[in-house]
């Protein structure tokens, strides 16, 4: 029977299933851990006198809580410091590899996993973080879990799961070269169209010529935000681009083993005639840069348009209309305002969505030789130490700093403001992250999600600009 890629990975990992229940027990090939969602899980193991079943398949890093300033200094926030220490102690006690705050491989968990070659096609991958969907870019089934499930995976290396539906999103057409529109705009546009619950109960497979044309980093941006469309996971079938990315990465399989695996990985694609529960096609030929205006990622418009009225946004849905009214009030915006008239106070280029080398290269090209507006405070937070080092080799740090950006150490930083990088109430931020919920970047903070080049241009202009005309 013709199977989708999701069907194949699912079937390959069943340890146990029971006709009395919708749930199957699946084996987990890779478990990523960070400091925020793991302490209680390790406590649970200790209380019940259990060990970690497969420490060799488990990798940890610190990212959410770490300061992005000088790491040789002690962490000022005592509580953050305790949480980071707890992870260090737990990894030591249970024998888990940890890329700690001083490690040359430290960074945001969904940036370091792929760049270290720890994420492989066909794997089941989990982490106590909803953006685990990022790793689906490699043709793996990757999704976020809660702390209780983290404890379950640590103890058993398995997870009880209900099979999701298959949802196919086909991206037709292609973005015109060098006009400043990127994969971030594509995924924002997808979420805008399907809504924040459009992918609920589903695993999304992204297909089409556009997807095949993308680099791995660009695929990761798309898969990363699958969760914002309600989907548990997002997948792209692996291909030569995937295999070449993985070749030679530090922990990638090597030599003959790698070549043999490529032969297996070539089978990781949906069969012709495979059935999907839902199909959605978008033509992206004339896609404009996207900007979110509201308090969830579906509240998005084209940069060359205006803030919509609640009625226009909600199209007859009462609850969505109420959400839009609330969002406009929180964001201090009114219908009819031109997006390119909205001034900003802060710019954040970072996060597991857009803090990889290609993102930084694109952003740097928009600011070279220019200066950050005097009304804006802007920062760049590379996704990992490796990204930071590579960027510095290319001189990107100098380009950003000469333009007036702060150049920081890697971590989640202002995506969610658990460390000191937060917005003050009322501050408006152009951000390359993935969520614009109320208070996400700081209580009362106003987040607008955009691509790296849009954020960089906004820093210079002091307001949103249409990068297609600007560059």
């Amino acid at each position, binding site marked *: 029977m013709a199977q989708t890629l999701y069907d194949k990975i699912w079937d390959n990992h069943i340890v146990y299933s029971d006709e009395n229940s919708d749930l199957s027990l699946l084996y987990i090939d890779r478990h990523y851990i960070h400091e925020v969602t793991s*302490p209680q899980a390790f406590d649970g193991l200790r209380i019940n006198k259990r060990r970690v079943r497969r420490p060799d398949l488990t990798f940890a890093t610190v990212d959410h809580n770490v300061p992005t300033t000088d790491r040789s200094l002690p962490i000022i926030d005592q509580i953050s410091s305790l949480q980071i220490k707890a992870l260090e102690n737990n990894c030591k006690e249970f024998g888990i590899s940890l890329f700690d705050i001083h490690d040359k491989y430290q960074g945001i968990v969904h940036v370091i996993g792929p760049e270290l070659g720890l994420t492989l096609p066909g794997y089941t991958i989990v982490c106590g973080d909803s953006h685990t969907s990022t790793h689906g870019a490699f043709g793996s089934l990757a999704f976020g879990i809660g702390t209780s499930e983290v404890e379950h995976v640590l103890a*058993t290396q398995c997870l009880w799961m209900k099979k999701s539906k298959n949802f196919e999103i086909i991206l037709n057409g292609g973005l015109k070269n060098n006009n400043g529109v990127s994969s971030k705009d594509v995924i924002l546009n997808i979420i805008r169209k399907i809504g924040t619950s459009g992918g609920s109960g589903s695993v999304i497979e992204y297909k089409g010529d556009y997807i095949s044309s993308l680099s791995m980093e660009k695929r990761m941006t798309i898969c990363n935000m699958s969760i914002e469309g309600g989907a548990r996971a997002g997948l792209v079938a692996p291909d030569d681009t995937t295999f070449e990315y993985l070749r030679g990465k530090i922990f990638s399989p090597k030599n003959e083993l790698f070549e043999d695996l490529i032969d297996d990985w070539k089978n990781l694609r949906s069969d012709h005639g495979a059935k999907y529960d839902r199909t959605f096609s978008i033509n992206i030929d004339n896609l404009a840069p996207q900007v979110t205006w509201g308090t969830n990622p579906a509240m998005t418009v084209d940069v060359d348009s205006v803030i919509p009225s609640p009625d226009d946004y909600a199209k007859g849905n009462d609850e969505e209309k109420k959400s839009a009214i*609330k969002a406009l009030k929180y964001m201090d915006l009114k219908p009819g305002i031109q997006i390119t008239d909205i001034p900003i106070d802060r710019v954040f280029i970072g996060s597991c969505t857009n803090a990889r080398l290609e993102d930084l290269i694109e952003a740097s090209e928009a600011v070279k030789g220019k200066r950050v507006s005097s009304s804006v405070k802007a920062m760049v937070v590379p996704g990992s130490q490796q990204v930071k080092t590579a960027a510095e080799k290319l001189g990107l740090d100098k380009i950003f700093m000469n333009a007036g950006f702060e150049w920081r150490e890697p971590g989640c930083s202002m995506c969610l403001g658990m460390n000191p990088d937060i917005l003050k109430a009322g501050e408006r931020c152009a951000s390359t992250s993935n969520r614009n919920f109320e208070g996400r970047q700081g209580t009362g903070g106003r987040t607008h999600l955009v691509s790296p080049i849009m954020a960089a241009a906004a820093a210079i202009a002091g307001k949103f600009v249409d990068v297609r005309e600007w560059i």
Partner: protein
Amino acid sequence: MEPFRNLTSKVVPLDIANIDTDQIIPKQFLKLLGKTGYGEYLFFNWRYDDHGIPTKTFVLNLPELKGRQILLTRENFGIGSSREHAVWALKDYGFKVIIGVSFADIFYNNCFKNGVLVIKLDKNIIEDFFSSKTGEEFDIDLSHQQIRIGSSSYSFEIDPTLKDSLESGTDEISKTLQLESQIKEYEDENNLAVKPDSYAIL
């Protein structure tokens, strides 16, 4: 985990759709190391003003609604971050049941891991609850999968395994470890000794 017991309570009506987990429990409270004590931070930014004073109109601050064990909400509750702290906050505050039209997948799962019952009901029924039932006692009967309000009765769906986990309160990990031989069989068949990671050198 304590087994779920049928309960009778009035509801706290939270008449807002698309509530994300950043609202349920803001990030500054994710730095805590335990599973308890989050109740006072539940819906923090809606519950307290800039000076830490409880706001007059937010439902959790209305004295007549205190002590109610059921949260009534709309569509798409619990979207966003996977933080299980959101469930810990709801549970610690005192909610044992959440009723709404739809829920985010990860949040839904997290609730059942903590013995919190989540009931999905049709949009029209939820609308009726908000308009005319917020002063009534809801009698939640998990075994019969019914909510009884006065003389009316509403059925709800629930996966049998999730229902069983709530009724028995069994530790899920113990249950899984009973399948040790199947897990080992999977590991042996997939020849993990030569899996790529065995080449990882740290």
